[in-house]
């Protein structure tokens, strides 16, 4: 398998569109790297530059220490699984997986060995004689992956391979892809717009926006310590709540004014505001839905972070409930236990877990406290 290095990678199209700007990343052997971001953020373009399907406008790409900028895709020892793949309709599963190797004039016995090994990994052994129309969506997806596996590449490149599957199948296939990563010990670069997919699959995630890398980190770190407003809002579902808050620093006491509410800032968050001279300035307060509590015990224990509102929407998900309400003209979400007595239209009291808030500079959108 392989390690990759992307240094200062840029993509500027002839029409002037700057798709990727100064992309830097070191990928270790066997890593499962995810590129995630909204549509048009440059993640697929970056993947295609790694594949050699797009020219690199600037910067250097190396695979295992060799510069790959001007190397043809077929000589990069990569294999791809793309979103809109097609299986050859009149060929069996076996032939579909063998086809690419036949075109490269690989000997028959070697083809047979590779196809059967890939089929075993993908649990397709009993389906080798079937044609695509006799396969389920998940089975077809596995055949598409089998076509990549038989190439025995250094790096697998996957561009939204699950996007055309329904939600339930996507969840099943995620597990399959994880298992493939384990059993092959492969280096994989995976592109998705789905943050849930990114969080569940990757060892590290690259969050992109408008062609620029926002943050590269493990799923847990991205969730707990987002470096800017975009990452904080993009990662996590339901989305993080954002409120404008005016900072008030009086001696060693720091508070945040949100509408008519004054929320006391705990010790863990104070110093960044004091050192950053934020007194009197407006910052963005971020708090995850699970850190907004409705329990009486929590509210009683945290009187300096209480807000009151009316529940606008009550959404039961089974084990938990999402409550939607307004504070200072901004909609908020609380993720609470399903035993909550609150329903739509009820007056409600919530307390914010202030030790778990995130604060962002309103102008630069960068984190203040992480």
């Amino acid at each position, binding site marked *: 398998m392989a390690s990759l290095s992307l240094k200062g990678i840029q993509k500027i*199209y*002839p*029409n*002037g*569109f*700057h*798709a990727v*700007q100064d992309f830097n990343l070191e990928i270790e052997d066997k890593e499962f790297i995810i590129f995630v971001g909204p549509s048009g953020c440059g993640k697929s*373009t970056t993947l295609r530059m790694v*594949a*050699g*399907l*797009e020219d690199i406008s600037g910067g250097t790409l190396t695979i295992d220490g060799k510069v790959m900028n001007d190397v*043809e*895709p*077929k000589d990069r020892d*990569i*294999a*791809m*699984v*793309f*979103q*809109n*793949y*097609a299986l*050859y*309709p*009149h*060929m069996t599963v076996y032939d579909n997986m063998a*086809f*690419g190797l036949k*075109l490269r004039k690989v000997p028959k016995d070697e083809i047979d060995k590779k196809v059967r090994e890939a089929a075993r990994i993908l649990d397709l052994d009993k389906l080798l004689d079937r044609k695509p129309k006799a396969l389920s969506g998940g089975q077809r997806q596995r055949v598409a992956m089998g*076509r*990549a596996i038989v190439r025995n590449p250094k790096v697998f490149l996957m561009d939204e391979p699950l996007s055309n599957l329904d939600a339930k199948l996507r969840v099943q296939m995620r597990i399959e892809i994880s298992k493939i990563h384990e059993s092959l010990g492969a280096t994989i670069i995976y592109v998705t717009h789905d943050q849930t997919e990114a969080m569940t699959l990757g060892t590290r995630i690259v969050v992109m926006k*408008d062609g*620029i890398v926002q943050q590269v980190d493990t799923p847990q770190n991205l969730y707990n310590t987002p470096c800017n407003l975009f990452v904080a809002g993009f990662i996590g579902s339901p989305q993080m709540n954002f409120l404008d808050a005016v900072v008030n620093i009086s001696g060693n006491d720091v508070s945040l004014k949100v509408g008519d509410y004054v929320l006391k800032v705990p010790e863990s968050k104070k110093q960044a505001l004091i050192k950053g001279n934020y007194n009197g300035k407006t910052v963005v307060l971020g708090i995850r839905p699970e850190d907004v509590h409705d329990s009486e015990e929590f509210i009683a224990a945290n009187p300096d972070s209480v807000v009151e509102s009316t529940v606008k929407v009550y959404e039961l998900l089974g084990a938990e409930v999402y409550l939607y309400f307004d504070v200072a003209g901004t909609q908020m979400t609380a993720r609470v236990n399903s035993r909550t007595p609150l329903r739509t239209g009820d007056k409600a009291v919530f307390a914010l877990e202030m030790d778990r808030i995130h604060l962002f500079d309103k*102008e*630069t*959108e960068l984190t203040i406290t992480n």
Partner: protein
Amino acid sequence: MEYTTQLNSAVNELQRITGIKLEVAADSIQDEERALKQLRSLCNAYKEKFNKNHFLKSLMIGSVSPVEAMEDALRLHIAPEEQRILFLLEMKGALNDTVKEILKNLFPPQTKAYLIPMTECGVAILRPVKDTESEQEIFQLAHMIVDTLNTEALTHVWAAYSGVIHHLTELAAAWQETSLALKVGKLFYSEQTVFPYNRLGIGRLIYQLPVPICEGFLKELFGNDVPDSMDEDTTATINRFLQNNLNIAETSRQLHMHRNTLIYRLDQVEKRTGLDLRRFEDAMTFKIASLVMNYLQTERNSKHE
């Protein structure tokens, strides 16, 4: 008589495609050469008469009259009246056997699609369309072709496609449409790989303008100082500003510059061009001017080639 190897091959080829075995009388080298030429002409004539791809290609480039087209279509068992779409694929490199094999297997005979190599790096696909197939499904199909060639042939591909044609006599117009779509797409929408003819937008409008009109427009706007060569930083700033929908805060964040620096650069652009890019109308004019300049540059380059 013992023939040369070449003459032998030509005789065998003729027998293979027509079923006719000829005896050739050639007493000298000149006779043999003449015979070889005649045999090859006979083979080509037969292929032209009975080769579907050759017929369809001729139809596309307009070298077959409508009357001949109907006769040839019937003889070749190609239904003249059927709903079809023409796809045009262009590879980054030459059209190789791998790509041809992949396409043959994506569109086996049962699909009634015709694969017609058109140029060194281009192939046309004439494919029947069902009544139930939507525009979105056709768009997906084009992406499927591109993605499959990307992953299986490991080659970069662009794809353009026409509107639905109902009769073979519309094929020449469809060919013009897809060729135009490919040119306009690669020039104005270079970040994309699939170009439907009916979604070319402002790119098609500009591409079809006569060059003198484009030059006149730029002169009217900028006088003699057409800004086709701004420094890299200014160009990057302008492109990023337009990409961000004229949002100063977001642009300065992305370019890691103070908003005042960005405003200064935009002021410099205004001094040079007379256009304040912070105003939507001026930004739109500048964007159109950029597209026109891009187009003229491409035209100049293609004349030099």
